[in-house]
């Protein structure tokens, strides 16, 4: 691994080592561009991965103080855990399940498709699908996504998904399969094929699932053009009198403040930390925070309209055996306002282990007693889904800074406010009904509805928009206000779509790397 001097002002500083930051770092380093990655968490490797839900939760989660606010149930039931993401080398690509869906064209053009929606801030992306497709293909090849791009077959169907799939068949659905997943179904790219271990979201112990932890990051280091500093928490981005960013102040492992100079800075700390860092970097010149002339930094926070739904079948299912997200149902991903809501949702088979099922079946203080105990006795006969629905952006769903409370770094604690739009509520209710119908067609006796988990899909808080007054960054994730400041994670999403964000984050990062290299060569940045 290269090392760079703190005063080297020719490097690109990337904050975060997950899907966005890790991919961007490798893409730039492969082009010979010098990169310093600041990762707030520890260095992890495959030896750290255990098949244990709570042990891994405690080991890798981002557990710094956060305040969960707004009208969603988590403001009461998960008051300090609005999100479920990772602090560590590889970021949330350790935790993600591997689902690699592309946006649909209408999901990128939500304002055009849906029109103005009361109490929502729905806008079009400044990119259309045709433009994204080649980048999606590059991302699929990089990550090893099962399907036509790689020619790698989808994974074998496990028990839990076979029940869901049969229900789909009996209820006339057509679009259900065990992919696309960024999990090797055959040995590929120096990584083994999936062994149906389960525990995908606790980190894949054999590296069959793509994660930057054992792909992009070590490969970037191997180029000699990338230094990754772990236990390095970015505190503030600095700028000069011309308004260009000049470096990043961070806390190192000993808690000492360091200042890494930079030619440009790319923020990829996920949708809470990225806007938080921009807001914390407010200065005389930028009193509302960096890149925030639109006032949109921290706003339009989206998590997906989501829920869990678990059915009890007449026979044993043992859903925990095998891939955690073993299948995807796409029939409901369409804009059909006759259903009572705009946009659509994906149903994704998702196994939970007994510990998490017992914690999330009915989260909060009320989740005990005879009804809960009885449900858990049916655990080995359950199959169920996670709902990933389009969540409408709303300006009041946002990240703000607490005015007095600070975290261990002395930074104001982020307040994460989320209130579902009526559209989200209608959609989730529809998803519960549809899921029940699917499972009842295969003989389900009981169907349990779980409310949203702390969010792993966090999007929108530095949104892209063609119009600088309506968005933070342009179509390349470049700040409208500051040419050498980029956003490289899911916070640049304009809408949430009904698909897991990682593939799109990676596609955008590859595209952004091309743009940055071009603009650096032309001395535009």
């Amino acid at each position: 691994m290269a090392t760079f001097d703190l005063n080297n002002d020719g490097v690109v500083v990337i904050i975060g080592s997950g899907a966005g930051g890790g991919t961007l770092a490798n893409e730039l380093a492969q082009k010979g561009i010098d990169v310093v990655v600041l990762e707030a968490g520890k260095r992890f490797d495959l030896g750290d991965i255990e098949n244990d839900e709570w042990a891994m939760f405690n080991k890798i989660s981002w557990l710094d103080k956060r305040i969960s606010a707004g009208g969603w149930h988590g403001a009461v039931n998960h008051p300090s855990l609005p999100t479920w993401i990772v602090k560590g080398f590889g970021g949330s690509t350790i935790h993600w399940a591997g689902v690699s869906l592309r946006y649909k064209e209408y999901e990128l053009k939500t304002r055009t498709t849906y029109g103005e929606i009361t109490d929502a801030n729905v806008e079009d992306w400044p990119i259309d699908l045709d433009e994204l497709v080649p980048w999606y293909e590059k991302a699929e090849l990089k990550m090893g996504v099962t399907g036509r791009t790689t020619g790698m077959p989808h994974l074998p169907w496990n028990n839990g998904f076979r029940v869901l799939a049969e229900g789909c068949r009996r209820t006339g659905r057509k679009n259900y399969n065990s992919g696309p997943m960024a999990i090797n179904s055959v040995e590929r790219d120096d990584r083994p094929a999936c062994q149906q271990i389960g525990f995908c979201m606790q980190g894949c112990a054999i590296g069959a699932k793509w994660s930057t932890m054992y792909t992009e990051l070590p490969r970037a280091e191997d180029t000699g053009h990338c230094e990754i500093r772990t236990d390095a928490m970015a505190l503030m981005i600095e700028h000069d009198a011309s308004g260009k960013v000049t470096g990043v102040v961070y806390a190192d492992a000993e808690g000492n403040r360091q200042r890494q100079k930079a030619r440009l800075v790319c923020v990829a700390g996920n949708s809470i930390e990225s806007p938080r860092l921009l807001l914390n970097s407010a200065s005389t010149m930028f009193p509302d925070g960096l890149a925030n002339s639109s006032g949109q930094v921290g706003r339009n926070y989206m998590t997906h309209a989501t829920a869990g739904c678990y059915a009890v079948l007449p026979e044993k299912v043992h859903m925990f055996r095998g891939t955690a997200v073993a299948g995807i149902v796409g029939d409901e991903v369409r804009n059909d306002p006759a259903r009572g809501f705009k946009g659509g949702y994906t149903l994704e088979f998702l196994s939970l282990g007994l510990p998490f099922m017992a914690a999330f079946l009915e989260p909060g203080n009320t989740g005990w007693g005879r009804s809960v105990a009885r449900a858990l006795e049916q655990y080995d006969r359950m199959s169920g889904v996670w709902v990933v629905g389009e969540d409408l952006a709303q300006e009041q769903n946002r990240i703000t800074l607490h005015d007095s409370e600070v975290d261990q770094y002395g930074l104001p604690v982020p307040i994460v406010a989320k209130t579902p739009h009526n559209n989200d509520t209608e959609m989730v209710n529809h998803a519960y009904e549809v899921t029940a119908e699917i499972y009842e067609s295969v003989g389900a006796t009981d169907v349990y509805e779980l409310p949203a988990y702390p969010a792993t899909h966090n999007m929108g808080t530095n949104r892209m928009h063609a119009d600088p007054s309506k968005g933070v960054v342009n179509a390349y994730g470049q700040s409208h206000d500051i040419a050498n400041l980029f956003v490289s994670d899911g916070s640049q999403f304009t809408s949430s779509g009904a698909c897991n964000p990682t593939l799109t984050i990676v596609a955008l990062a590859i595209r952004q790397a091309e743009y940055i290299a071009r603009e650096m060569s032309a001395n535009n940045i």
Partner: protein
Amino acid sequence: MKIRFHRQRPAPADHLGMSRRMFLMTTTFAGVTTAGLLGPAGRLSAAALDGAQSATLLRVVQDIYPHPDLLSLAHYQAIADSVGADADEDAAKAAALTDGLARLDALAQSLYGKPYVEVEESDAREGLLRAFQNEAFFQDVRWTAYFAIYDNKEIWPLFGYEGSSVEHGGYIDRGFSDITFVPQGPTLEERIAQVQQ
């Protein structure tokens, strides 16, 4: 937040029957312990709790996650012991626990004219506990019970959960796709054909 139990069938009668059988078993057992038959070395009574409160705590732990068909009294006793041991370590916790259990008994007395452990209807006992569910002492007991039951590798097999698999080579040869009440998924050849059209 109350989740809606969607289309849940009524509990089978035998489940309720087992609850009642277990209730009787427990109260008898609790009586035995308070009679001191386990001797001075008995670990059942935490220093912080007197005999009656130890019996109340045991009943509370059973009522928080009742699994009369799956778990034995010893499982619940171990949880109550663990709660008691925590209280012995922390005076504030002990005070909150003894006070909470006293108020639980007081509520039972005011509504049913008898202490908590003597209220026979499990619904009624759960109703009494619900009045305390937002209090820290109750949630301490509840989460201790949660981890001791659902995050306990010894107990997992009773629920049909098999846990960690990487050390066994995953579930690929251990039943990941062994159910017979729905059709098989596509074969490898079919899956290859799908992506190579």
